[in-house]
């Protein structure tokens, strides 16, 4: 609850010295030092594979370091499991929540640290404890609700309450805002700041520059297992952090200039499918239409319906003037549609198949087919051309898709679909979990595709991506398009409000008339 009485306020809450951790074939952490002062919000940044997760696993007792020491409140400690770390006052909110969906909020919070009466769980005391903690820290949540019924933002509160119940003085949050709306993220940072003001310490593992700049006191940047920068947030900039993370200058949050729209390519009228209704939109040649929204508001269902993976219950979809409402996915592709699905591992690629085979998929029906056969030389040549054109880093075209990093697998998927030169591209979450460097490359590819006169429908939960790429922005909320904006109107605050349902949205919005958004 409170800092240990004996501790001098200048003693760091967490001090890692010379942490080295080797895994077969990689040096995940190489003599990493990290000092986190008590009462600060300290951001730990780095691209995928930079060693952030390994470092936190070492701190939290999930991995034993090969060398180095861990000090908590000035005392050297050796943790053999997370239980030891918790006993020392650490607590971690994992990126994928560690909650029991069928249990209540109170049960989740007190689990393994239960108030008891005669060996039985004292439910009344558990409930009171949750209410007290919730009130004290501004984390309101119903103690009797089943966790499985709660939205993501509230589940995260339960995770934090769980740590506070155990008296955690240092909270480690791994990518805490990945699943939150901008509003929820702001609320989270308000809570973290008040925790820090009480003398608790927060370590934030993240790759989002904006929230680091707004919410942290200090930043430590890792690259390739080394600390490459220690920065005071107030004295740094997004560009400096990004340069440290990537090792080169990166142009951030570039807002690309608008395209020059031509003929209507995709025309959707009053479309309805599971979880989607009254959707009316058009996408023209030479423009990118962005669909913003919090995950789960019907965007995926809409795109699946457009791609032919989900039956349309009513309405009409026309591609290049032809009705494709009930056409199969194959027919749609033949008609001129390419599709980058959001789940690149399960839907977009076949991880066990080779890079060459992955690149051939879809093209097997058209350019690569020679009287129904696939000449290996043609497949290889096609793979080599795409690997070169899209800068995919693969040891060879023969290695399995699963051996590629997330960013490279995404480049493979996007490259394969762009290579169809289809008049319409559907693309979902093109840069989710992709490093900053690769993000820039992918964005450039999409803009070039647009400028070549193709139509692009982009679905993204990343607001900066939507704002940077889209010529027009539609917001989906609870299965409908509730707001539409031209590029210039779509600032972060406006979109954030609309994504949280703030645009009202009792009536479906036609995309031509932008809607006034008020509080």
């Amino acid at each position, binding site marked *: 609850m409170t800092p240990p009485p004996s501790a001098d306020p200048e003693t760091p809450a967490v001090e890692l010295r010379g942490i080295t951790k080797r895994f077969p074939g990689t040096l995940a952490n190489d003599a990493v030092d990290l000092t986190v002062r008590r009462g600060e919000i300290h951001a730990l940044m780095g691209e995928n594979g930079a060693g952030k997760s390994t470092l936190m696993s070492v701190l939290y007792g999930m991995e034993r370091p090969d060398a180095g020491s861990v000090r908590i409140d000035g005392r050297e400690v050796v943790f053999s499991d*997370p239980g030891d770390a918790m006993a020392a006052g650490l607590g971690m909110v994992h990126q994928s929540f560690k909650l029991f969906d*069928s*249990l209540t909020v109170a049960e989740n919070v007190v689990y393994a640290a239960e108030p008891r009466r005669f060996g*039985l769980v004292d439910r009344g005391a558990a409930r009171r404890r949750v209410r007290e903690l919730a009130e004290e820290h501004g984390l309101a949540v119903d103690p009797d609700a089943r966790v499985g019924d709660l939205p993501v933002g509230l589940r995260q509160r339960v995770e934090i309450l769980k740590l506070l119940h155990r008296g955690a003085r240092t909270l480690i949050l791994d990518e805490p805002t990945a699943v939150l709306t901008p509003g929820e993220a702001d609320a989270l940072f308000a809570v973290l700041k008040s925790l820090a003001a009480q003398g608790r310490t927060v370590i934030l593992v993240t790759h989002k520059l904006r929230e680091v700049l707004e919410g942290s006191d200090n930043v430590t940047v890792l690259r390739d297992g080394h600390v490459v920068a220690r920065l005071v947030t107030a004295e740094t900039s997004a560009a400096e952090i990004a340069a440290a993370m990537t090792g080169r200058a990166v142009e951030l949050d570039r807002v690309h200039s608008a395209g020059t729209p031509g003929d209507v390519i995709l025309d959707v009228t009053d479309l309805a499918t599971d*979880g989607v209704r009254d959707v009316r939109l058009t996408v023209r040649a030479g423009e990118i239409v962005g669909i913003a929204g919090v995950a789960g508001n019907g965007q995926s*269902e809409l795109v699946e319906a457009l791609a032919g*993976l*989900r039956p349309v219950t009513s309405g009409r979809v026309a591609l290049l003037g032809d009705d494709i409402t009930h056409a199969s996915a194959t027919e749609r592709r033949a008609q001129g549609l390419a599709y980058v699905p959001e789940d690149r591992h399960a839907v977009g690629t076949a991880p066990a198949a080779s890079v060459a085979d992955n690149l051939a998929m879809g093209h097997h029906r058209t350019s690569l087919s020679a009287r129904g056969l696939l000449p290996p030389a043609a497949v290889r040549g096609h793979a080599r051309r795409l690997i070169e054109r899209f800068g995919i880093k693969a040891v060879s075209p023969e290695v399995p898709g699963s051996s590629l990093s997330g960013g490279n697998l995404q480049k493979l998927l996007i490259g394969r679909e762009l290579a169809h030169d289809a008049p319409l591209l559907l693309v979902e979450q093109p840069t989710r979990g992709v490093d900053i460097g690769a993000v820039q490359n992918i964005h450039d590819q999409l803009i070039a595709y647009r400028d070549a006169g193709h139509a692009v429908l982009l679905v993204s939960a990343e607001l900066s991506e939507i704002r940077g790429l889209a010529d027009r922005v539609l917001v989906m909320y609870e299965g409908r398009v509730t707001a539409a904006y031209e590029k210039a109107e779509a600032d972060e605050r406006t979109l954030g409000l609309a994504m949280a349902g703030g645009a009202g949205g009792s009536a479906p919005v036609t995309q031509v008339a932008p809607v006034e958004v008020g509080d």
Partner: protein
Amino acid sequence: MFFDSDLLMSALRALTPILLASLGGAICERAGVFNIGLEGMMLMGCFTAVATSWFTGSPWLGVLAAALASAVYSLILAVGAVTLRGDAVVLGIALNLLAVGLTSFLLRTVFGVQGTFDDPSLAGLPLVGGFSPLAYLAWAAVGVAALMLSRHVWGLRLRGVGEAPDAAATLGVSPVRYQYGAVLVSGVLCGLAGAQLALGNVTLFSENMTAGRGWIAVVAVMLGRALPLGVLLAALLFGLSEAAGFRLQGLGLPQQATDAAPYVVTLGALFLTTARRRRRTPSTSPSAGAVS
């Protein structure tokens, strides 16, 4: 009259072994171990109970030995499924097949007979108030299990382990320990179930005498949604169908037909619950899991 208090009494007597075994199965289920080895564990209990009672003259020692033997036997599942992370279904089937072979072999080597060992001087369990003492124990076990699972600290932790072992582990609760505990408890309960079958319902051992009761117990776990009271209701249904089978036999139906009664009820019950579950779960959208 076909349905009368006699029928209910015989149903209550018939259900004891199924109830004990399915309670064990339910506890395993809640801990996240799918235990379909109940049949084999029960059969080991049957043989151990008869052998111990025969050599010591005490059916009580028979009960105790049966509980111990089945618990030891259940360790195969615990080690295989929990420690070595093997497939619990394959292990359960192996336990069931091994028990049939092992008890038949032991029947021959220990008693020198094949098929059935049956002797007037083999001591069975006495009746107390018309029921075997193990029947009272089974009813009490329902209450204890219900209370422990829903209210006790161990029960909460066990349910957590069964639902999300990773989450439990991050909070310092060892899933391995709780899963071993659950499997061992199911072993003890199946041992008691076997003892009840071989020294209570009848007083003899015959090869494969459990005759699918362990499988019915597995179904009872599913029907009762692994809740102690739910399992009690399911076991009661099977007890009634078994008792009704005997009654029908008395009315002149061939034994082969009446013996099938519990299995027909099992099939029917499985069919009904699956159909109901189908209706309740709408087709899951492929993107539903992708909200990450």
